[in-house]
């Protein structure tokens, strides 16, 4: 708290400016926030559509190489965003295999990069939750005559709260990410400039007010997301939806 106070004292002017940018609904600022939200929400939804079935399959199906795939997916969770950005850049560059699609430096490119980053999180967390649940349900579901395949929707539905939590975790990673989107998006004004890349740019310009304003909004989003997670967890506890 004391450190916080010192920062506020030292940069009082910047803080006041930042707050007025937020409170006065600065159009430029909100356009950036909106683009960030659109990119990351789309990225997370696409990641969920791809990652959750993969995670469920890894949890329920038994096939050779399954352990290796689980290790791979878990390792991909910690993939450095800059490397993901570089790989997506190499794919989308005019010199790359997908160059003719002309996607580099567009929001679509940023969505692709974030999907690559978030899908392993979705798959790994889904696998973890569904596997735990499957273990608990296994005998009961077999006793009720539910086949392995038919058990997947049952497990996904019963794991719904944990999966929403995974969704929020993925969103948190996507919205706060800068390394990948700055490479594939190019941080182009009004086109691909999102909160994190603006913070990086404005900080490098020594223009701390706008950077701080966006930082405050990002922190606010993080608080909201975490509050949602903890509300869900509380509800899960109350309704006995927790796993293991």
């Amino acid at each position: 708290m004391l450190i916080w106070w010192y920062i506020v004292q030292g940069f009082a002017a910047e803080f006041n400016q930042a707050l007025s940018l937020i409170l006065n609904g600065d159009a430029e600022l909100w356009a950036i926030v909106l683009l960030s939200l659109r990119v990351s929400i789309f990225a997370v939804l696409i990641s969920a559509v791809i990652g959750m079935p993969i995670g469920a399959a890894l949890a329920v199906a038994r096939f050779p190489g399954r352990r290796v795939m689980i290790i791979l997916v878990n390792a991909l969770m910690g993939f450095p965003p800059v490397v993901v950005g570089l790989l997506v850049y190499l794919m989308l560059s005019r010199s790359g295999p997908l160059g003719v699609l002309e996607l580099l430096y567009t929001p679509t490119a940023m969505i692709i990069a974030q999907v690559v980053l978030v899908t392993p999180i979705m798959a790994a967390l889904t696998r973890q939750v569904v596997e735990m649940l499957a273990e608990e349900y296994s005998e009961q579901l077999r006793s009720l005559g539910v086949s392995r395949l038919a058990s997947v929707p049952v497990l996904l539905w019963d794991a719904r709260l944990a999966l929403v939590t995974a969704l929020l975790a993925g969103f948190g990673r996507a919205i706060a990410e800068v390394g990948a989107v700055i490479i594939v998006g190019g941080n182009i004004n009004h086109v691909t400039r999102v909160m994190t890349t603006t913070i990086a740019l404005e900080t490098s310009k020594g223009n701390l007010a706008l950077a701080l304003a966006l930082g405050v909004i990002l922190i606010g989003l993080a608080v909201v997301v975490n509050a949602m997670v903890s509300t869900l967890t509380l509800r899960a506890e109350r309704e006995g939806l927790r796993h293991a």
Partner: protein
Amino acid sequence: MRDVVTGTPGVLEVSGLSIARDGKVLLDVPHLCLDGPGPTLILGPNGAGKSLLLRCLHGLIQPDRGRVCQNGVVLNAGHKARQAMVFQSPVLLRRSVAANLDFVLKRQSMPRALRKRRIEALLAEGGLDGKARQPARSLSGGEAQRLAILRALALDPETLFLDEPTSALDPSATQMIERMVLRASTRGVRIVMVTHDIGQARRLASDIVMMQAGYVVEHGAARRVLETPESDDSRRYLAGGLVT
């Protein structure tokens, strides 16, 4: 299939059944025939192989050797569909009380209106009226086990297996479960129940299977087994002596 003429379930017969792990015999039952209307109580100390035998009868576990037949036919999917099982700790879906019952009814493609009436009837039977919308996981231990039994009954089984359903419950909760079991038995559901509680066997059993260290040491009418046990193991167990 249920014997349409008499309405009683057929003969459950076990022959040459054995399961061993790491050279240790877990279950060795050369022959066992359950032909009465029950309730049949499988009685014995922990580790006697009671639950293992129950799972073999229900087809949840494939024995190393031997087979389970119903009316002379090796246990098949058709038989299993007319069996239900209740586990020691109830495995309830993370849904409402009503949804747990509806899950089973839906799988029988029962029309909606009919399902609704059936759920109401079942809840009344288990003393859970008024709890339909409550999350199943927030029920007390006794209520949860009652719901598990109701869900098993919703399958309209000819045979109901119960694996120590009251071992974690207090006397009054135990009494409610025992009443439900007796009512189901009266309606013609064949009951096969595992317990280590001699009092419970006395209260419920029509015939008793005594088990010890993986072997069936005695099988006979309840009163006869309880009053004049033929094997030393049975005598020791009923006398409350240490059985190893």
